[in-house]
């Protein structure tokens, strides 16, 4: 694209004014002063709009009986580019695999959402959520119970056949 240059004509001395310009400026500021429409968002009360595809804090889906859906297949720690997932799998009497340890370090996580994409049983998700403040650093390593407690909406995955979510 060709660059466009806008030439600004400055008025010659003798054509400018101070008082009229000042009054015009004061009228403008007054209009803004009494205008009830403000751009400030009253944040904690008024939440910012987040995209459905926003990738934030993780959550683990659970079965109706309260067990995590995770089958400890090991795909998410494998695919994770930040290496922030620690998974130790186990097997119960019926031969069902389940996670004994499942931890996500939210500090190392880069929120790429690949764990959610790769999960064969749709257990681990990134979520539409961003308020993660804590008082200590170790609170940012989310264990399995913490991940299962999260109740924010999960992220809508990007669908290659419908790239604009229509």
């Amino acid at each position: 694209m060709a660059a466009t240059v806008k030439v600004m004509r400055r008025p010659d001395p003798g054509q400018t004014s101070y008082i009229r310009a000042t009054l015009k400026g004061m009228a403008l500021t007054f209009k803004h002063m009494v205008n009830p429409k403000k751009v400030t968002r009253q944040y904690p009360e008024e939440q910012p709009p987040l995209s459905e595809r926003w990738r934030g804090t993780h959550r683990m889906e659970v079965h109706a009986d309260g067990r995590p859906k995770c089958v400890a297949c090991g795909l998410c720690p494998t695919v994770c580019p930040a290496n922030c997932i620690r998974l130790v799998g186990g097997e119960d009497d019926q031969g069902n695999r389940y996670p004994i340890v499942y931890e996500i370090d939210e500090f190392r996580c880069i929120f790429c959402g690949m764990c959610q994409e790769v999960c064969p049983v749709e257990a681990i998700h990134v979520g539409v959520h961003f308020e993660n403040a804590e008082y200590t650093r170790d609170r940012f390593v989310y264990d399995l119970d913490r991940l299962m407690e999260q109740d924010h909406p999960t992220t809508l995955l990007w669908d290659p056949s419908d790239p604009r979510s229509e």
Partner: protein
Amino acid sequence: MNDLSPTAFLVTSSIKVFLVFSVLLAVVALMTLMERRLAGFIQDRLGPNRVGPFGILQPAADGLKNILKEETMPATANRFFFVLAPALAIVPAVITFAVVPFAAPLETPWGTVGMIVADIPIGILFVLALGSLGVYGLFLAGWASNNKYAFLGGVRSASQLVSYEVALGLSIVPVLMLAGNLTLPQIVWEQQQLGFWYVFPLSLAFILFVISAFAETNRLPFDLPEAESELVTGYHTEYSGMKFSMFFIAEYSHILTASALMATLFLGGWSIPFWSGDHMIWYEGMLISGFTAAGEPVAANPAWWKTLLTFVSFALKTAFFVLVFMWVRWTLPRFRYDQVMHLGWKVMLPVALAYVMALAATILVLDQLGVEGFLFGAVLTAMSTLATVIFVFFIDSDRLISGSAVSGTDREVRSPVRTVDRPTLRPGSGVGAGR
């Protein structure tokens, strides 16, 4: 000036001093909040609204923060003057309010109490004298900090205040000519008697006073002593904690006093328009509301509700000017330094002088013709309006304050395209040659 016994005078004066001082500081604190909220509104934001309802406790939070903050002391600063400067800035700013009458006299069981802390005969001169003392605080702060930005700010404040003090004094002269008295209650009374607020018969003096007051209080567009974009924060660059907020309290008390003075000198002070019930003045030891046709004084009848109403009137007028101060601040950019000096010495001073002369001549002619009352005010209003129109016409057509714009030819003259002769670099010569 009053009918109180010495004991009652002492007691009422102490109460007034205490009340006025605390109300003044409380209002100053609220003004900082008002300034920040107005700034927010003008910029389509909300401003601080979290501490208390509508952010009303924000000044308390700010004050607490400033008290708890570390007080830094630059190693090379002059300790004595560095500590003295904030006090020197704040004391004159707060004291000046003492001579401003803020309501009609109040009737009490012990006598009638004037609603003014000190009804001294030199009134307006006291304001001018103490108002210009404030510059010592700013200048000492700049000098004692031993910092070039602070020093430049201090020097600027000194030269600016000296320059505009002249125009300020001359813009008050017309008021004194009409009122024939220096005390502010008397000036209010004369405005009530004339039936005109002085802003009409002395419109040009009012404009000059407002401009000078902006310069005197170091407010935009005259905030060169602070000049954030050039001098960090000017004279208070090195100050922190409570010493820093002392300068702010001083600045806002100056604004409040200047607004109160504008209201008193030009908008009839505490008087309520179109109502003669509040006409009161001390005359030979008694409070009168006027004279009979035979020249006999008529006793006034003060009442607590009159005091209250007149106080509201005074507060509204003052608040209006405070609003204008802040409104202008968030509208206009800062003047260049040469523009400030140009405006002060080459515009304000000659215009004020010429206006005083013209007004004196007009008053003399009217007195010789025996014109009085409404016609007197009307003629002066017409004359001053004409003077204002001429003043505004000349100021507005860029003959006196030039904008920052320069014409094409002018710009070429000021910054010609420069060609620089660079030594030709040959391989094998210069710094890296031997490698």
